[in-house]
Protein backbone atom coordinates (compact mmCIF):
# COMPACT_ATOMS: atom_id res chain seq x y z
CA UNK A 1 0.00 0.00 0.00
CA UNK A 2 1.35 3.43 -0.96
CA UNK A 3 1.45 6.02 1.82
CA UNK A 4 -1.88 7.75 2.47
CA UNK A 5 -1.30 11.37 3.48
CA UNK A 6 -3.96 13.27 5.40
CA UNK A 7 -4.14 16.96 6.30
CA UNK A 8 -6.51 18.17 8.99
CA UNK A 9 -7.83 21.74 9.16
CA UNK A 10 -9.44 22.67 12.46
CA UNK A 11 -9.60 25.35 15.11
CA UNK A 12 -7.62 25.14 18.33
CA UNK A 13 -9.70 23.35 20.97
CA UNK A 14 -11.70 21.10 18.63
CA UNK A 15 -9.56 18.08 19.37
CA UNK A 16 -8.16 17.53 15.88
CA UNK A 17 -4.65 16.82 17.17
CA UNK A 18 -6.10 14.21 19.55
CA UNK A 19 -8.13 12.71 16.69
CA UNK A 20 -5.01 12.44 14.51
CA UNK A 21 -3.20 10.77 17.41
CA UNK A 22 -6.12 8.37 17.96
CA UNK A 23 -6.06 7.47 14.27
CA UNK A 24 -2.35 6.61 14.63
CA UNK A 25 -3.08 4.45 17.67
CA UNK A 26 -5.91 2.67 15.84
CA UNK A 27 -3.55 2.10 12.91
CA UNK A 28 -1.09 0.44 15.29
CA UNK A 29 -3.84 -2.01 16.30
CA UNK A 30 -4.00 -2.99 12.61
CA UNK A 31 -0.20 -3.37 12.47
CA UNK A 32 0.07 -0.44 10.06
CA UNK A 33 2.84 2.16 9.98
CA UNK A 34 1.80 5.72 10.76
CA UNK A 35 2.70 9.25 11.73
CA UNK A 36 0.60 11.86 13.52
CA UNK A 37 1.93 15.36 14.07
CA UNK A 38 0.62 18.91 14.34
CA UNK A 39 1.93 22.01 12.64
CA UNK A 40 3.80 23.43 15.60
CA UNK A 41 2.73 26.94 16.34
CA UNK A 42 1.24 28.93 19.18
CA UNK A 43 -1.74 27.04 20.59
CA UNK A 44 -4.72 29.41 20.70
CA UNK A 45 -8.30 28.38 21.23
CA UNK A 46 -10.26 29.12 18.05
CA UNK A 47 -7.29 29.86 15.78
CA UNK A 48 -6.91 27.82 12.58
CA UNK A 49 -4.57 24.87 13.04
CA UNK A 50 -3.32 22.04 10.86
CA UNK A 51 -2.24 18.54 11.72
CA UNK A 52 -1.20 15.57 9.68
CA UNK A 53 -1.30 11.79 9.36
CA UNK A 54 0.58 9.36 7.21
CA UNK A 55 -0.54 5.73 7.02
CA UNK A 56 1.07 2.82 5.24
CA UNK A 57 1.66 -0.92 5.35
CA UNK A 58 5.39 -0.18 4.94
CA UNK A 59 7.72 1.78 7.24
CA UNK A 60 7.43 5.55 6.65
CA UNK A 61 10.60 7.60 6.72
CA UNK A 62 9.61 10.94 5.35
CA UNK A 63 9.77 13.74 7.91
CA UNK A 64 8.12 16.89 6.60
CA UNK A 65 4.68 18.47 6.35
CA UNK A 66 2.06 16.96 4.06
CA UNK A 67 2.02 19.25 1.01
CA UNK A 68 0.10 16.96 -1.34
CA UNK A 69 -2.56 15.22 0.74
CA UNK A 70 -4.73 12.37 -0.52
CA UNK A 71 -7.39 13.39 1.94
CA UNK A 72 -8.20 16.73 3.55
CA UNK A 73 -10.35 16.81 6.69
CA UNK A 74 -12.10 20.10 7.48
CA UNK A 75 -13.18 19.88 11.12
CA UNK A 76 -14.65 23.39 11.29
CA UNK A 77 -16.93 24.42 8.39
CA UNK A 78 -16.14 28.11 8.98
CA UNK A 79 -12.60 27.35 7.75
CA UNK A 80 -13.92 26.51 4.27
CA UNK A 81 -13.92 30.16 3.34
CA UNK A 82 -11.00 31.14 5.57
CA UNK A 83 -8.13 28.85 4.57
CA UNK A 84 -6.99 27.29 1.30
CA UNK A 85 -8.06 23.85 2.49
CA UNK A 86 -7.70 22.14 -0.90
CA UNK A 87 -4.15 23.43 -1.53
CA UNK A 88 -1.93 20.76 -3.03
CA UNK A 89 -4.62 18.07 -2.94
CA UNK A 90 -3.58 15.28 -5.33
CA UNK A 91 -5.73 15.03 -8.51
CA UNK A 92 -7.79 12.08 -7.24
CA UNK A 93 -7.73 13.32 -3.65
CA UNK A 94 -10.84 13.83 -1.55
CA UNK A 95 -12.22 16.21 1.05
CA UNK A 96 -14.16 15.37 4.23
CA UNK A 97 -16.12 18.24 5.74
CA UNK A 98 -17.97 18.61 9.02
CA UNK A 99 -21.23 20.04 7.69
CA UNK A 100 -24.91 19.37 7.31
CA UNK A 101 -24.88 21.29 4.03
CA UNK A 102 -26.01 19.69 0.78
CA UNK A 103 -23.02 18.12 -1.00
CA UNK A 104 -23.79 19.55 -4.42
CA UNK A 105 -24.12 22.99 -2.92
CA UNK A 106 -20.81 22.55 -1.12
CA UNK A 107 -19.02 21.43 -4.30
CA UNK A 108 -20.37 24.46 -6.13
CA UNK A 109 -19.62 26.96 -3.38
CA UNK A 110 -15.96 25.92 -3.09
CA UNK A 111 -15.17 25.00 -6.68
CA UNK A 112 -14.88 21.29 -5.86
CA UNK A 113 -16.55 20.02 -9.03
CA UNK A 114 -14.99 16.70 -10.01
CA UNK A 115 -13.60 16.21 -6.50
CA UNK A 116 -14.70 13.40 -4.27
CA UNK A 117 -16.38 15.18 -1.37
CA UNK A 118 -17.58 13.60 1.85
CA UNK A 119 -19.68 15.30 4.50
CA UNK A 120 -20.92 14.46 7.94
CA UNK A 121 -22.67 16.70 10.44
CA UNK A 122 -20.08 15.99 13.13
CA UNK A 123 -20.94 19.03 15.26
CA UNK A 124 -24.65 18.11 15.22
CA UNK A 125 -23.95 14.47 16.09
CA UNK A 126 -21.64 15.56 18.89
CA UNK A 127 -24.27 17.92 20.34
CA UNK A 128 -26.86 15.15 20.28
CA UNK A 129 -24.65 12.43 21.75
CA UNK A 130 -21.92 13.98 23.87
CA UNK A 131 -23.94 17.11 24.63
CA UNK A 132 -21.39 19.63 23.43
CA UNK A 133 -19.77 20.53 20.13
CA UNK A 134 -16.68 18.31 20.06
CA UNK A 135 -16.58 17.28 16.40
CA UNK A 136 -13.33 15.33 16.65
CA UNK A 137 -14.73 11.91 17.57
CA UNK A 138 -17.53 11.85 14.97
CA UNK A 139 -15.31 13.21 12.19
CA UNK A 140 -12.82 10.46 13.07
CA UNK A 141 -15.67 7.96 12.66
CA UNK A 142 -16.35 9.28 9.16
CA UNK A 143 -12.62 9.24 8.35
CA UNK A 144 -12.23 5.64 9.52
CA UNK A 145 -15.16 4.70 7.24
CA UNK A 146 -13.63 6.49 4.24
CA UNK A 147 -10.15 5.03 4.77
CA UNK A 148 -11.46 1.46 5.10
CA UNK A 149 -8.27 0.38 6.87
CA UNK A 150 -9.62 -0.16 10.39
CA UNK A 151 -12.73 -2.28 11.10
CA UNK A 152 -15.51 -0.33 12.84
CA UNK A 153 -15.75 -2.62 15.86
CA UNK A 154 -11.99 -2.47 16.51
CA UNK A 155 -11.89 1.31 16.17
CA UNK A 156 -14.93 1.70 18.43
CA UNK A 157 -13.43 -0.62 21.03
CA UNK A 158 -10.20 1.33 21.01
CA UNK A 159 -12.07 4.62 21.34
CA UNK A 160 -14.09 3.25 24.24
CA UNK A 161 -10.98 2.18 26.12
CA UNK A 162 -9.30 5.51 25.46
CA UNK A 163 -12.20 7.59 26.84
CA UNK A 164 -12.78 5.18 29.69
CA UNK A 165 -9.14 5.45 30.73
CA UNK A 166 -8.78 9.22 30.31
CA UNK A 167 -12.32 10.31 31.31
CA UNK A 168 -15.13 7.97 32.42
CA UNK A 169 -17.48 5.22 31.25
CA UNK A 170 -20.28 7.67 30.45
CA UNK A 171 -18.15 9.80 28.12
CA UNK A 172 -16.71 6.63 26.59
CA UNK A 173 -20.19 5.35 25.70
CA UNK A 174 -21.31 8.72 24.31
CA UNK A 175 -18.18 9.17 22.20
CA UNK A 176 -18.48 5.67 20.79
CA UNK A 177 -22.08 6.49 19.91
CA UNK A 178 -20.95 9.69 18.14
CA UNK A 179 -18.20 7.79 16.36
CA UNK A 180 -20.51 5.02 15.16
CA UNK A 181 -23.25 7.42 14.07
CA UNK A 182 -20.82 9.43 11.93
CA UNK A 183 -19.38 6.20 10.53
CA UNK A 184 -22.87 5.34 9.33
CA UNK A 185 -24.04 8.80 8.33
CA UNK A 186 -21.11 10.07 6.23
CA UNK A 187 -22.37 11.07 2.77
CA UNK A 188 -20.40 11.35 -0.45
CA UNK A 189 -20.57 13.02 -3.84
Amino acid at each position, binding site marked *: MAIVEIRWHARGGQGAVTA*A*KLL*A*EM*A*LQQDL*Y*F*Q*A*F*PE*YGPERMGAPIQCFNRLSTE*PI*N*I*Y*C*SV*DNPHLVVVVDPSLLGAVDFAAGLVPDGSVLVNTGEDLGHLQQRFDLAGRKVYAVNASGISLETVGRAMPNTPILGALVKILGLIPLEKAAAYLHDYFNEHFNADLAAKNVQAFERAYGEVRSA
Partner: protein
Amino acid sequence: MSKTMAIVGTDAIAEAMRQIDPEVVAAYPITPQTAIVEKFSEYVADGLVNTQMVKVESEHSAMSACVGAAAAGGRVMTATSSQGLALMWEILYVASGLRLPIVLVNVNRTLSAPINIHCDHSDSMGARDASWIQIYSENAQEAYHNVLQAVRIAEHPEVRLPVMVNLDGFIISHAVDRIDILDDAPVREFIGEYSPAYPLLDVANPVSVGMFDGLYGYFFEAKRAQEASMEKAMYVIQQVGEEFGQRFGRPYGLWEEYGLEDARACVVALNSACGTIRTVIEAMRQEGKKIGLLKLRVFRPWPGQELVRVLQHFPVVAVFDRALAFKGGHGGPLYTEVAASLYEAEKRPLLANYVYGLGGRDLSVSMVRQALEEIWQAAEAGRVASRVNYLGLRE
Protein backbone atom coordinates in the same frame (compact mmCIF):
# COMPACT_ATOMS: atom_id res chain seq x y z
CA MET B 1 11.47 -9.12 22.92
CA SER B 2 9.86 -5.72 22.37
CA LYS B 3 6.54 -3.97 22.38
CA THR B 4 5.39 -1.72 19.56
CA MET B 5 3.89 1.58 20.61
CA ALA B 6 2.36 4.69 19.05
CA ILE B 7 4.22 7.37 20.99
CA VAL B 8 5.92 10.73 20.48
CA GLY B 9 9.70 11.00 20.37
CA THR B 10 10.00 12.51 23.83
CA ASP B 11 8.14 9.51 25.31
CA ALA B 12 10.59 7.15 23.58
CA ILE B 13 13.48 9.03 25.25
CA ALA B 14 11.73 8.90 28.64
CA GLU B 15 11.32 5.12 28.15
CA ALA B 16 15.07 4.80 27.53
CA MET B 17 15.74 6.81 30.70
CA ARG B 18 13.34 4.63 32.68
CA GLN B 19 15.16 1.51 31.52
CA ILE B 20 18.57 3.04 32.26
CA ASP B 21 17.32 4.12 35.71
CA PRO B 22 20.15 6.60 36.31
CA GLU B 23 21.11 7.46 39.89
CA VAL B 24 20.69 11.17 39.25
CA VAL B 25 18.82 13.27 36.69
CA ALA B 26 19.16 17.04 36.97
CA ALA B 27 17.24 19.03 34.38
CA TYR B 28 15.46 22.26 33.68
CA PRO B 29 12.51 22.44 31.28
CA ILE B 30 12.85 24.02 27.85
CA THR B 31 10.76 23.56 24.71
CA PRO B 32 10.88 21.07 22.98
CA GLN B 33 12.77 18.98 25.55
CA THR B 34 10.24 19.59 28.36
CA ALA B 35 8.05 16.56 27.70
CA ILE B 36 11.00 14.21 28.31
CA VAL B 37 11.59 15.49 31.82
CA GLU B 38 7.84 15.73 32.51
CA LYS B 39 7.36 12.08 31.62
CA PHE B 40 10.45 11.00 33.47
CA SER B 41 9.41 12.84 36.64
CA GLU B 42 6.15 10.87 36.50
CA TYR B 43 8.24 7.69 36.51
CA VAL B 44 10.15 9.03 39.51
CA ALA B 45 6.91 9.96 41.32
CA ASP B 46 5.38 6.56 40.54
CA GLY B 47 8.43 4.78 41.89
CA LEU B 48 9.25 3.11 38.55
CA VAL B 49 12.86 4.27 38.87
CA ASN B 50 15.22 4.83 41.79
CA THR B 51 16.51 8.09 40.35
CA GLN B 52 17.20 11.12 42.48
CA MET B 53 15.57 13.90 40.45
CA VAL B 54 17.24 17.25 41.07
CA LYS B 55 15.04 20.19 40.18
CA VAL B 56 17.25 23.15 39.48
CA GLU B 57 16.74 26.81 38.63
CA SER B 58 18.61 26.82 35.32
CA GLU B 59 20.47 24.63 32.84
CA HIS B 60 23.76 25.99 34.17
CA SER B 61 22.77 24.50 37.52
CA ALA B 62 21.46 21.33 35.86
CA MET B 63 24.82 20.58 34.28
CA SER B 64 26.62 21.63 37.48
CA ALA B 65 24.51 19.18 39.49
CA CYS B 66 25.23 16.49 36.87
CA VAL B 67 28.97 17.16 37.23
CA GLY B 68 28.76 16.86 41.02
CA ALA B 69 26.68 13.69 40.91
CA ALA B 70 28.88 12.09 38.25
CA ALA B 71 32.05 12.99 40.16
CA ALA B 72 30.49 11.37 43.22
CA GLY B 73 30.28 8.19 41.15
CA GLY B 74 26.70 8.13 39.93
CA ARG B 75 25.25 7.26 36.57
CA VAL B 76 23.87 10.63 35.51
CA MET B 77 21.63 11.93 32.74
CA THR B 78 20.03 15.18 31.64
CA ALA B 79 18.14 16.58 28.67
CA THR B 80 17.92 20.01 27.13
CA SER B 81 17.52 22.08 23.96
CA SER B 82 18.72 25.31 22.41
CA GLN B 83 19.20 28.13 24.94
CA GLY B 84 19.34 25.48 27.64
CA LEU B 85 22.38 23.87 26.05
CA ALA B 86 23.85 27.34 25.52
CA LEU B 87 23.43 28.11 29.22
CA MET B 88 25.23 24.84 30.08
CA TRP B 89 28.18 25.89 27.94
CA GLU B 90 30.96 26.47 30.46
CA ILE B 91 29.99 23.39 32.45
CA LEU B 92 29.97 21.22 29.30
CA TYR B 93 33.75 21.70 29.21
CA VAL B 94 34.02 20.88 32.93
CA ALA B 95 32.08 17.65 32.42
CA SER B 96 34.36 16.49 29.60
CA GLY B 97 37.53 17.85 31.24
CA LEU B 98 36.79 15.88 34.40
CA ARG B 99 36.09 12.83 32.22
CA LEU B 100 32.57 12.36 33.55
CA PRO B 101 30.38 9.99 31.50
CA ILE B 102 27.21 12.08 31.61
CA VAL B 103 24.55 11.32 28.97
CA LEU B 104 22.66 14.34 27.67
CA VAL B 105 19.72 14.15 25.28
CA ASN B 106 19.59 17.29 23.16
CA VAL B 107 16.35 17.91 21.32
CA ASN B 108 17.71 20.09 18.53
CA ARG B 109 16.28 23.60 18.46
CA THR B 110 17.77 26.77 17.07
CA LEU B 111 19.32 29.58 19.10
CA SER B 112 17.80 33.05 19.48
CA ALA B 113 17.54 35.72 18.10
CA PRO B 114 14.97 36.20 16.62
CA ILE B 115 13.18 34.03 19.18
CA ASN B 116 12.28 30.73 17.58
CA ILE B 117 11.47 27.43 19.24
CA HIS B 118 11.83 25.24 16.16
CA CYS B 119 14.40 22.83 14.88
CA ASP B 120 17.86 23.41 13.55
CA HIS B 121 21.27 22.19 14.67
CA SER B 122 22.76 25.50 15.85
CA ASP B 123 22.64 24.34 19.48
CA SER B 124 24.65 21.13 19.16
CA MET B 125 26.94 22.50 16.45
CA GLY B 126 27.87 25.33 18.78
CA ALA B 127 28.99 22.74 21.32
CA ARG B 128 31.01 20.74 18.82
CA ASP B 129 34.42 21.61 20.34
CA ALA B 130 33.40 20.92 23.96
CA SER B 131 34.85 17.39 23.86
CA TRP B 132 31.44 15.77 24.03
CA ILE B 133 30.70 12.78 21.85
CA GLN B 134 27.84 13.73 19.52
CA ILE B 135 25.46 11.15 18.07
CA TYR B 136 22.59 12.05 15.72
CA SER B 137 19.30 10.22 15.18
CA GLU B 138 17.02 10.16 12.12
CA ASN B 139 13.90 9.29 14.07
CA ALA B 140 12.62 8.44 17.53
CA GLN B 141 13.44 4.75 17.14
CA GLU B 142 17.08 5.57 16.51
CA ALA B 143 17.14 8.20 19.26
CA TYR B 144 15.85 5.59 21.72
CA HIS B 145 18.53 3.10 20.61
CA ASN B 146 21.22 5.78 20.65
CA VAL B 147 20.43 6.82 24.24
CA LEU B 148 20.81 3.20 25.39
CA GLN B 149 24.15 2.90 23.60
CA ALA B 150 25.32 6.31 24.84
CA VAL B 151 25.53 4.98 28.41
CA ARG B 152 27.87 2.19 27.33
CA ILE B 153 30.00 4.50 25.20
CA ALA B 154 30.34 7.21 27.85
CA GLU B 155 31.21 4.78 30.64
CA HIS B 156 33.68 2.70 28.62
CA PRO B 157 37.02 2.79 30.50
CA GLU B 158 38.87 3.76 27.30
CA VAL B 159 36.48 6.68 26.68
CA ARG B 160 35.07 8.23 29.87
CA LEU B 161 33.66 11.23 28.05
CA PRO B 162 30.16 12.69 28.13
CA VAL B 163 27.80 11.84 25.25
CA MET B 164 25.16 14.04 23.64
CA VAL B 165 22.40 12.26 21.71
CA ASN B 166 20.61 14.55 19.25
CA LEU B 167 17.18 14.32 17.68
CA ASP B 168 15.20 16.93 15.76
CA GLY B 169 12.94 19.15 17.84
CA PHE B 170 9.19 18.86 17.08
CA ILE B 171 9.74 17.03 13.76
CA ILE B 172 10.75 13.93 15.74
CA SER B 173 10.28 14.87 19.39
CA HIS B 174 6.59 15.74 19.08
CA ALA B 175 5.42 13.44 16.30
CA VAL B 176 3.57 10.19 17.05
CA ASP B 177 5.48 7.39 15.38
CA ARG B 178 5.62 3.63 15.53
CA ILE B 179 8.34 2.72 18.04
CA ASP B 180 9.57 -0.66 19.26
CA ILE B 181 10.45 -0.45 22.95
CA LEU B 182 12.75 -3.28 23.97
CA ASP B 183 12.10 -5.40 27.05
CA ASP B 184 13.57 -4.06 30.27
CA ALA B 185 15.65 -7.11 31.26
CA PRO B 186 17.79 -7.45 28.09
CA VAL B 187 18.23 -3.67 27.95
CA ARG B 188 19.47 -3.61 31.54
CA GLU B 189 21.77 -6.52 30.79
CA PHE B 190 23.17 -4.62 27.80
CA ILE B 191 23.70 -1.44 29.81
CA GLY B 192 25.28 -3.29 32.73
CA GLU B 193 26.55 -2.02 36.06
CA TYR B 194 28.60 1.13 36.21
CA SER B 195 31.82 1.15 38.15
CA PRO B 196 33.18 4.68 38.26
CA ALA B 197 36.96 5.09 38.10
CA TYR B 198 37.55 7.60 40.90
CA PRO B 199 34.29 8.26 42.75
CA LEU B 200 34.34 11.00 45.36
CA LEU B 201 32.12 8.89 47.60
CA ASP B 202 34.74 6.17 47.84
CA VAL B 203 35.92 7.43 51.23
CA ALA B 204 38.51 4.68 51.57
CA ASN B 205 40.32 6.12 48.55
CA PRO B 206 39.95 9.88 48.82
CA VAL B 207 40.55 11.96 45.70
CA SER B 208 40.32 15.61 44.79
CA VAL B 209 38.48 16.54 41.63
CA GLY B 210 38.81 19.70 39.57
CA MET B 211 41.77 21.18 41.42
CA PHE B 212 43.65 24.26 40.23
CA ASP B 213 46.35 23.02 37.91
CA GLY B 214 48.31 26.14 37.05
CA LEU B 215 51.21 26.89 34.77
CA TYR B 216 53.38 23.98 35.92
CA GLY B 217 50.74 21.30 36.17
CA TYR B 218 49.47 18.79 33.64
CA PHE B 219 46.73 20.75 31.87
CA PHE B 220 48.23 20.26 28.42
CA GLU B 221 48.76 16.53 29.01
CA ALA B 222 45.21 16.16 30.32
CA LYS B 223 43.83 17.77 27.17
CA ARG B 224 45.99 15.59 24.92
CA ALA B 225 44.72 12.54 26.81
CA GLN B 226 41.16 13.78 26.28
CA GLU B 227 41.82 14.00 22.52
CA ALA B 228 43.27 10.45 22.55
CA SER B 229 40.14 9.17 24.30
CA MET B 230 38.01 10.84 21.64
CA GLU B 231 40.03 8.89 19.05
CA LYS B 232 39.38 5.65 20.94
CA ALA B 233 35.70 6.53 21.20
CA MET B 234 35.53 6.03 17.41
CA TYR B 235 36.17 2.32 17.89
CA VAL B 236 34.16 1.95 21.07
CA ILE B 237 31.10 3.49 19.37
CA GLN B 238 31.39 0.89 16.61
CA GLN B 239 31.92 -1.99 19.07
CA VAL B 240 28.92 -0.95 21.13
CA GLY B 241 26.85 -0.50 17.95
CA GLU B 242 27.81 -3.98 16.78
CA GLU B 243 27.00 -5.54 20.14
CA PHE B 244 23.66 -3.73 20.15
CA GLY B 245 22.98 -5.30 16.74
CA GLN B 246 23.88 -8.79 17.98
CA ARG B 247 21.58 -8.45 20.96
CA PHE B 248 18.66 -6.56 19.44
CA GLY B 249 18.91 -7.17 15.69
CA ARG B 250 19.77 -3.65 14.61
CA PRO B 251 23.48 -2.82 14.38
CA TYR B 252 24.78 0.76 14.40
CA GLY B 253 28.00 2.18 12.98
CA LEU B 254 29.50 5.60 12.34
CA TRP B 255 27.02 6.18 9.55
CA GLU B 256 24.39 4.40 7.48
CA GLU B 257 24.62 4.07 3.70
CA TYR B 258 21.90 4.04 1.08
CA GLY B 259 22.61 3.35 -2.59
CA LEU B 260 26.32 4.23 -2.38
CA GLU B 261 27.52 1.17 -4.33
CA ASP B 262 26.64 2.59 -7.76
CA ALA B 263 26.02 6.27 -6.99
CA ARG B 264 27.64 9.09 -8.95
CA ALA B 265 26.83 11.66 -6.31
CA CYS B 266 26.64 11.29 -2.57
CA VAL B 267 24.60 13.33 -0.10
CA VAL B 268 25.83 13.69 3.48
CA ALA B 269 23.28 14.76 6.09
CA LEU B 270 22.22 14.47 9.74
CA ASN B 271 19.00 13.62 11.58
CA SER B 272 15.43 13.63 10.21
CA ALA B 273 16.31 15.23 6.85
CA CYS B 274 17.92 11.88 5.95
CA GLY B 275 14.53 10.18 5.84
CA THR B 276 13.08 12.67 3.39
CA ILE B 277 16.29 12.70 1.32
CA ARG B 278 16.31 8.89 1.14
CA THR B 279 12.68 8.88 -0.01
CA VAL B 280 13.48 11.30 -2.86
CA ILE B 281 16.65 9.40 -3.79
CA GLU B 282 14.60 6.21 -4.02
CA ALA B 283 12.30 7.87 -6.58
CA MET B 284 15.20 9.35 -8.58
CA ARG B 285 17.09 6.07 -8.70
CA GLN B 286 14.09 4.54 -10.46
CA GLU B 287 14.61 7.19 -13.14
CA GLY B 288 18.24 6.09 -13.44
CA LYS B 289 19.63 9.04 -11.49
CA LYS B 290 21.99 7.18 -9.21
CA ILE B 291 22.47 9.27 -6.11
CA GLY B 292 23.41 7.85 -2.70
CA LEU B 293 22.99 8.94 0.91
CA LEU B 294 25.51 8.79 3.72
CA LYS B 295 23.52 9.39 6.89
CA LEU B 296 26.11 10.48 9.40
CA ARG B 297 25.46 9.22 12.93
CA VAL B 298 28.64 10.23 14.69
CA PHE B 299 29.77 13.85 14.39
CA ARG B 300 32.14 13.82 17.40
CA PRO B 301 34.53 12.09 17.23
CA TRP B 302 34.79 13.15 13.58
CA PRO B 303 35.30 10.05 11.41
CA GLY B 304 37.45 11.98 8.92
CA GLN B 305 39.73 9.23 7.61
CA GLU B 306 36.91 6.73 7.39
CA LEU B 307 34.74 9.20 5.49
CA VAL B 308 37.51 10.08 3.03
CA ARG B 309 37.90 6.42 2.10
CA VAL B 310 34.22 6.32 1.10
CA LEU B 311 33.60 9.84 -0.21
CA GLN B 312 36.66 10.22 -2.46
CA HIS B 313 35.16 7.83 -5.01
CA PHE B 314 32.22 10.08 -5.86
CA PRO B 315 32.41 12.72 -8.61
CA VAL B 316 30.12 14.95 -6.47
CA VAL B 317 29.53 15.16 -2.73
CA ALA B 318 26.71 17.39 -1.46
CA VAL B 319 26.51 18.23 2.24
CA PHE B 320 23.23 19.28 3.87
CA ASP B 321 23.60 21.63 6.85
CA ARG B 322 20.84 22.62 9.28
CA ALA B 323 23.05 25.31 10.83
CA LEU B 324 25.34 28.11 9.78
CA ALA B 325 28.92 28.61 10.90
CA PHE B 326 28.91 32.35 10.01
CA LYS B 327 32.27 32.15 8.32
CA GLY B 328 31.10 34.65 5.75
CA GLY B 329 29.57 32.56 2.99
CA HIS B 330 31.83 29.50 3.24
CA GLY B 331 29.11 27.03 4.21
CA GLY B 332 27.78 25.30 7.30
CA PRO B 333 29.64 23.34 9.98
CA LEU B 334 29.11 19.85 8.53
CA TYR B 335 30.23 21.02 5.09
CA THR B 336 33.34 22.58 6.61
CA GLU B 337 34.29 19.30 8.29
CA VAL B 338 33.71 17.23 5.14
CA ALA B 339 35.67 19.69 2.99
CA ALA B 340 38.59 19.77 5.44
CA SER B 341 38.81 15.97 5.54
CA LEU B 342 38.69 15.67 1.75
CA TYR B 343 41.90 17.74 1.50
CA GLU B 344 43.62 14.44 2.41
CA ALA B 345 41.88 12.53 -0.37
CA GLU B 346 43.76 11.19 -3.39
CA LYS B 347 40.83 12.16 -5.56
CA ARG B 348 38.80 15.14 -4.45
CA PRO B 349 35.11 15.17 -5.35
CA LEU B 350 33.34 18.33 -6.41
CA LEU B 351 31.59 19.77 -3.37
CA ALA B 352 28.28 21.49 -2.83
CA ASN B 353 26.61 22.67 0.35
CA TYR B 354 22.88 22.99 0.95
CA VAL B 355 21.85 25.00 4.00
CA TYR B 356 18.22 24.24 4.87
CA GLY B 357 15.60 24.28 7.58
CA LEU B 358 16.91 27.07 9.82
CA GLY B 359 14.45 27.89 12.60
CA GLY B 360 12.27 24.93 11.64
CA ARG B 361 11.65 25.91 8.00
CA ASP B 362 10.10 22.75 6.57
CA LEU B 363 12.35 20.68 4.31
CA SER B 364 9.73 19.57 1.82
CA VAL B 365 9.97 16.76 -0.69
CA SER B 366 9.98 19.32 -3.52
CA MET B 367 12.89 21.24 -1.98
CA VAL B 368 14.92 18.05 -1.62
CA ARG B 369 14.01 17.11 -5.19
CA GLN B 370 15.23 20.48 -6.45
CA ALA B 371 18.56 20.10 -4.65
CA LEU B 372 19.07 16.51 -5.78
CA GLU B 373 18.32 17.41 -9.41
CA GLU B 374 21.02 20.10 -9.19
CA ILE B 375 23.42 17.59 -7.66
CA TRP B 376 22.65 15.10 -10.39
CA GLN B 377 23.24 17.75 -13.06
CA ALA B 378 26.57 18.58 -11.40
CA ALA B 379 27.54 14.92 -11.65
CA GLU B 380 26.55 14.87 -15.36
CA ALA B 381 28.26 18.15 -16.20
CA GLY B 382 31.36 17.63 -14.07
CA ARG B 383 30.95 21.01 -12.43
CA VAL B 384 29.01 22.39 -9.50
CA ALA B 385 27.01 25.47 -10.44
CA SER B 386 26.96 27.00 -6.98
CA ARG B 387 29.04 25.96 -3.97
CA VAL B 388 26.87 27.22 -1.08
CA ASN B 389 23.10 27.08 -1.60
CA TYR B 390 20.20 28.04 0.64
CA LEU B 391 17.29 25.65 0.24
CA GLY B 392 13.81 27.08 0.77
CA LEU B 393 15.06 30.59 1.46
CA ARG B 394 12.58 33.34 0.53
CA GLU B 395 14.33 35.82 -1.74
